[in-house]
């Protein structure tokens, strides 16, 4: 079976400055992978490279077994960018933003089909915002807006979901709602790659953690849950040695329980 993502010896430069070097990353179908690391370690850059938004300067990237240069099955990928800061100049409803997630399935100049509408409604249902569908997106809180962006990606019914810092600046209640959503997707067999600073309530879902430091992968493996250690809720990646000698700590086992 082919890997969903296979990045071989990948390097990415931004404005001529090398950011990521020598990245080898394979993601198998059904993986729930967390990209972790301190600020500036290249987590978001790596996700952008995996979506093709940033070109590789070296190495090769295959998605679903197809080389990136020839890849066109965009509807198999769902991308959740970091929450945009500036609002757009014209109001948009939650429903309209989520409906944009169906673009991969729609043909030009055609109205939404029944299947499109069902997928949009279901995506809103999964993130728990069906009752806000008609509201303007700018009226929602930051955490809710993040969930709308996830619903937009879900509406496209992707097999691979890439999320860039979905928990950044989101309160615990919304993080739990997010964990519940991603848990549902994981059960359905989706492959999920997310960038996170701290896992928080997501910890029980993560099957694999890749730690970046200064643009290189320093650790790749099962997340280590630590039982019985007090004050286990802070992830001290900054202290992790590059040689993997330190046990990288994720989170307490009870943290992710929803309600």
């Amino acid at each position, binding site marked *: 079976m082919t890997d969903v993502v296979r990045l071989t010896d990948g390097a990415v430069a931004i404005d001529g400055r090398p950011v990521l070097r020598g990245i080898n990353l394979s993601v198998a179908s059904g993986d729930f992978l967390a990209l972790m690391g301190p600020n500036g370690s290249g987590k978001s850059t790596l996700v952008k490279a995996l979506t093709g938004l940033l070109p590789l300067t070296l190495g090769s990237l295959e998605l679903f077994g197809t080389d990136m240069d020839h890849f066109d099955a965009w509807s198999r990928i769902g991308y959740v960018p970091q929450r945009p800061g500036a609002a757009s100049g014209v*109001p948009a409803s939650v429903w309209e933003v989520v409906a944009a997630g169906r673009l991969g399935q729609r043909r030009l100049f055609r109205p939404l089909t029944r299947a499109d509408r069902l997928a949009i409604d279901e995506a809103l249902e999964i993130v728990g915002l069906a009752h806000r569908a008609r509201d303007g997106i700018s009226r929602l809180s930051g955490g809710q807006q993040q969930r709308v962006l996830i619903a937009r990606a879900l509406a496209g019914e992707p097999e691979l979901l890439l999320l860039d810092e979905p928990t950044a600046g989101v309160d615990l209640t919304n993080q739990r709602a997010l964990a519940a959503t991603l848990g549902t997707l994981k059960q359905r067999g989706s492959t999920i790659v997310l960038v996170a600073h701290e896992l928080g309530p997501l910890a029980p879902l993560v099957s694999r953690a890749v730690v970046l430091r200064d643009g290189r992968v320093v650790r790749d493996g099962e997340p280590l849950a630590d039982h019985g250690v007090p004050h286990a809720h802070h992830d001290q990646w900054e202290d992790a040695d590059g040689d993997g000698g330190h046990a990288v700590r994720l989170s307490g086992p009870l943290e992710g329980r929803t309600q």
Partner: protein
Amino acid sequence: MNPIDLLSLPFMQRALIAAVFIGLAAPAVGTYLVQRRLALMGDGIGHVAVTGVALGLLTGTSPTWTAVVVAVLGAVAIEVIRERGATNGDVALALLFYGGLAGGVFITGLAGTGAASLQGYLFGSITTIDAADVIVTMVLAAIVLVTCVGLAPQLFAVAQDQDFARVAGLSVRFYNVLIAVLAAVSVTVAMRTVGLLLVSALMVVPVATAQQLTRSFRGTLTSAMVLGMIASLGGLLLAASAPAGTNVAPGPTIVLLALAGFVVTWPIGAWLRRRQRLTAPFPADPGDSPLDHVDTAEHPHVHGPDCGHIAVRHGDHVDYVHDGHRHAPHDEHYDEH
């Protein structure tokens, strides 16, 4: 002359047809420009199009077509400068705008036709367009309308979130250039009605008016088109029914009418937004244990649906807001929430 007689005049009928099409098409493109925070792009294209008109006057070809060509080139240039994201992109745009205007006036001088012939394009002369012009206006405006409405999902997504649109497989550059070209076409189509210097108003003002009252993109797009059509038809009829002896130009009348619509709508929008903010539900306390229970002091007033205080939903009950307090009914008394 009474209005009915007026409508039977062929030049007036042509003007009305043009006004309907332009009134619909200009705000349709304008909605996407406002969404991208490029409200002044129409203005910039208008300036560049002046050179196009002048080239037409100089070479003796139809100024409409030379204006379309030059405006499209200018719009694509603006889009390229924008995409390159040069730090002083706005300065580069300013150079293009003033170059267009100065070049236009300069070339008109060379053509020897004087400023008078340019004036009709700068400020509009809807009542002088001939049958061929009307057909060109209808066709171009129809193309703009079909594209703006038919490709609305794609254009909306690209303007809303470029990265997402790219990962959804859309060619972001194609849609950006498409909007620029549509804007250029609407500018040149509308130049006969309201003039190149005022065309941006017809693209932007109805959108600004519409979004005072709308919450969705589709709602904004539709109502902006309706408002634009009302303004351009109404302005034309107002100007035409002005008393004999006065000289009321249709172009400025249309723009002033559109602005009047905004002036009337803005206070309503401001009131609605304030009201919405005041009555937005208070978030339910996510804590596991209830907060301390605080009774209000002796409360002489009975809160109810019509008590005059703002009622705000708070979790599973209603808080009444007055004088900086939130009072929630509890048994025979009120709690401070």
